[in-house]
């Protein structure tokens, strides 16, 4: 199993602040996904990054895949209470289909 390390594990910020979540591995992935999970729900796919160095933007969220396809970051600009949730990164290994998940970053945005 290819391990993914996420940091920070917990993050509590006020509305309007910016934040970055990191996802790192020593292994290369063919793609990497970011999910958000709210209490009582399954993870919801936010984005998939495939190409090394790729940057994708989803409104106030910016996702980057490292050049070597071993790491990724999620940056949120001007966080809102609706951004609260568990953010999970998951890597698709070069062989096989099952995703390897990081432990997640629990984000709390207070008004």
């Amino acid at each position, binding site marked *: 199993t290819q391990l993914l390390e996420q940091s920070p594990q917990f993050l509590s910020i006020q509305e309007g602040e910016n934040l970055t979540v990191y996802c790192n591995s020593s292994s290369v992935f063919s793609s990497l996904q970011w999910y958000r999970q709210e209490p*009582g729900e399954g993870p919801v796919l936010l984005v998939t990054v495939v190409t090394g160095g790729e940057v994708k933007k989803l409104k106030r969220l910016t996702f980057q895949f490292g050049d070597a396809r071993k790491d990724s970051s999620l940056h949120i600009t001007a966080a809102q209470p609706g951004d609260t949730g568990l953010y999970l990164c998951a890597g698709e290994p070069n062989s096989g289909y*099952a995703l390897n*998940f990081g*432990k997640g970053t629990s984000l709390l945005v207070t008004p």
Partner: protein
Amino acid sequence: SAVISQKPSRDICQRGTSLTIQCQVDSQVTMMFWYRQQPGQSLTLIATANQGSEATYESGFVIDKFPISRPNLTFSTLTVSNMSPEDSSIYLCSVLTGEQYFGPGTRLTVT
């Protein structure tokens, strides 16, 4: 994308009993996965369930404890057998249709 439903959404069960969780998808998919998410933790893959073949279990999970059925391309069941409090978790089914999508989960508490 795919819309996935799970039954039951939650249950409280006694030690030593078994629970069967159902997963229904709104389209035909070949690859389906079952994950476990223990309290405050990330997702751990239990098994891959492809229609027409035996389920493939990950290290630490065995068929006697977690038997899986996959009778057609839109449905699967996971049974948690001879339950103990350590089996208290959220159980999630997931499908791969280009990208990986998750059901809402079944929250199981074993007393």
